[in-house]
């Protein structure tokens, strides 16, 4: 059993209006960052999970996302595990 640091990025699903992301994209455009095509703002969650492998830690985090951490109607998530320092 090792401890893994699991990073979870949760973002509003593409195609759904993200007013916060839109406001930031508009502000970036106003600052002449015209190369910004889209901005979406979500949450970043860091969990320390005890598991036998990184894959197991990610599997556990996926179950947490499906049950609580992300809303399946409005959000997508990305999970990455690494051995905790």
């Amino acid at each position, binding site marked *: 059993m090792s401890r893994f640091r699991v990073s979870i990025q949760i973002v*509003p699903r593409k195609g*759904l*209006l*993200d*007013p*916060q992301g839109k*406001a930031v994209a508009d502000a970036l455009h106003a600052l002449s960052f015209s190369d910004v095509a889209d901005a979406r703002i979500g*949450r970043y969650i860091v969990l320390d999970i005890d598991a036998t492998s990184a894959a197991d830690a990610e599997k556990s985090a996926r179950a947490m996302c499906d049950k*609580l*951490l992300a*809303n399946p*109607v*409005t959000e997508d998530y990305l999970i990455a595990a690494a051995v905790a320092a």
Partner: protein
Amino acid sequence: MKFGIVTFPGSNCDVDALHAVTDALGQTAVSLWHREHDTQGCDVLILPGGFSYGDALRAGAIARFSPIMQEVIAHAERGAPVIGICNGFQILCESHLLPGALMRNAGMKFICDWVHLRVEGAAPRYLNNYQPGQVLRIPIAHGEGRYVADDATLDALDQSGHVLFRYCDTDGAVTDAANPNGALRNIAGITNASGNVLGMMPHPERAVESLLGSTDGLALFESLLARVNA
């Protein structure tokens, strides 16, 4: 008829709901703390407005797993009435008792204002004492009230008459200008497929006495009574 009003940490419309069903409607009601496991024989359960658990993670996401919610879900699955108002609507969506989700208002701002709603749909349990197409004046107070769902879900809601209230102008026209939060298809309130679970962002419990500025919310609660007394 006995009402149960759930109080979560952060609920702030529970006393308003209690007042509406006892003083304005003349029924009995009990307050149910979120840690309780017993709905005390209540006929109707109300999830009130507020900011349960500080809206941590997402509005309603944590409340869904509180002890009392397991009883609320069982109550709903028995076909008994459950009403979620504002944060209560958010909790019902998070609990999957209603389809869709409530997202941040399109204009980013928290809105506390009066809106007009058009009554439609097929839900005699809640609409019995309204006329189809009737325009109601009811207040809203929310930052995350933009109803969203995928097109298939929206079509199913429309076709089955499970959209009960839409934001409209004073004449009952459903327009973008009358939509305060960017809700898809101007949806302000819906029921589940069996018609016993109602979720709505506007606050009918704040529109039950002329002193409050409107009595248009009272008929929603009276509809429940009419059905039982019929």
